[in-house]
């Protein structure tokens, strides 16, 4: 009987807390959203299942969780906690990104810059709520709408908040089609939404090859903290555009990014143990994250309207919302909202320019925040 009692005391049933049960329900909701609603399934399924796994109650003396020295989950989580996985994901993103829409209309890059206002205003909001500067910077980067960047910066500035920040960032990225359209309609008139943009020019292969090299030099010299993320992004893009390393580019944008996505999503989910995650701080982070997305969307749209005051060839201000670097979801949202007004006005390719510029902008913002806030 004693042996049975001892065994029962080590089971999850004996040690399950209400917090663990709540987190498991959240994980199952994520999985359901991914499968039923098709909300970012490549992220939400690994994260959701990781949450379920990570909230099986720990057993004393057995190294099982992400936080136990020597456990398998800790070894997998090493890639997250040390900021290794996000640059590898950026390598794959670079190898699948086509910058030609941005190259054909360079002024749209400024919309990607404008959307980063969400990062810095959220940084101020987090400070206002009492977070330390480094924590506030890690929370602010949620506004960049870039999961790998958010995880990378959180691992450097606020490792204790990494789980909450990652879950907030990926959750809101999945909700981009819900969050953005009302803001876009609120800030634009029907006449503005009907603006048609000029066709994109042809971009030569030489431009596509030279761009990643020079753009990396510009960004890295200005914000050295962004070297890793921007460097891998442009390295991946060069592999793609050089046309002599197609095998490497193909591997980077398929097998490699899929492997890293699985490991990253699963281990981030497993890190959200109830004891660490269900704190007042996490709720504040979620509230700030939603604010960050809203401000970033508004920032891009309003900056497009500001640019139109000075441009002869007007920009459809809807594409400013694509400065939020949730590639390609926010560009698809712009396309959808534009088509509602005019079924023949296809804005997708125009929106891809600020969309990929937003990736650069959020990576530069992360580099700046890391450099400035590390010493504080």
């Amino acid at each position, binding site marked *: 009987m004693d042996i049975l009692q001892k065994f029962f005391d080590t089971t999850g049933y004996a040690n399950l807390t209400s917090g663990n049960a709540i987190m498991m329900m959240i994980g199952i909701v994520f999985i359901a959203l991914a499968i039923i609603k098709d909300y970012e399934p490549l992220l939400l399924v690994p994260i959701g299942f990781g949450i379920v796994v990570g909230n099986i109650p720990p057993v004393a003396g057995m190294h099982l969780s992400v936080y136990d020295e020597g456990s398998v989950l800790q070894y997998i989580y090493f890639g997250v906690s040390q900021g290794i996985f996000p640059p590898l994901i950026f390598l794959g993103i670079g190898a699948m990104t086509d910058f030609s829409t941005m190259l054909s209309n360079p002024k749209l890059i400024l919309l990607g*810059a404008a959307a980063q206002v969400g*990062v810095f205003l959220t*940084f101020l909001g987090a400070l206002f709520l009492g977070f330390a500067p480094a924590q506030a910077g890690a929370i602010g980067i949620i506004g960049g709408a870039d999961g790998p960047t958010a995880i990378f910066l959180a691992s450097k500035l606020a490792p204790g908040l990494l789980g909450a920040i990652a879950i907030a960032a990926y959750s809101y990225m999945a909700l981009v089609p819900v969050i953005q359209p009302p803001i876009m309609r609120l800030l634009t008139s029907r006449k503005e939404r009907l603006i048609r943009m000029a066709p994109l020019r042809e971009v030569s292969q030489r431009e596509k090859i030279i*761009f990643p090299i020079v*753009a990396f030099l510009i960004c890295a010299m200005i914000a050295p903290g962004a070297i890793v993320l921007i460097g891998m992004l442009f390295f991946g893009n060069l592999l793609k*555009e050089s046309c002599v390393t197609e095998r490497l580019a193909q591997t980077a944008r398929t097998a490699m990014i899929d492997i890293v996505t699985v490991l990253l999503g699963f281990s981030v989910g497993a890190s959200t143990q109830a004891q660490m995650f269900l704190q007042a701080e996490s709720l504040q982070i979620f509230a700030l994250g939603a604010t960050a997305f809203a401000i970033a969307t508004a920032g891009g749209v309003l900056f497009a309207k500001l640019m139109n005051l000075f441009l002869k060839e007007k920009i459809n201000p809807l594409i400013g919302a694509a400065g939020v670097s949730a590639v390609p979801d926010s560009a698809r949202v712009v396309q959808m909202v534009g088509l509602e007004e005019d079924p023949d006005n296809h804005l997708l390719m125009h929106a891809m320019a600020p969309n990929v510029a937003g990736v650069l902008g959020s990576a530069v913002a992360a580099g*700046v925040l890391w450099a400035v806030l590390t010493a504080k």
Partner: protein
Amino acid sequence: MFFLVWRGSEWVSTMFDNISERLAYVADKDGVWTAITGMSIVFTALILISVFIAVLPRILKFLAPYLPEETSHHHHAPAPQTSSDDTAVAAGIGYVLHQMKTQEPTKR
């Protein structure tokens, strides 16, 4: 539900009670200057990239006589692969067309 609303309103009122302290904290940590500096650096980097991209075609045009386009082993990057959705859509269209054709009355 009532508990959540009650705790939420407590939290909001606490926040507003301490506004001046919180604003002093933001100022003490150079929050505003950090935000302004950060946005400026982001804009500077992307403006420089934008200017470079705008000038690049002219630079390449200038260099064209000295560095002609190669026609050797380089080829254009492969066209993006169609997703399985595109294939499914094409298959669906083909099926509908086939159905329409087979249901047309035969001409005698």
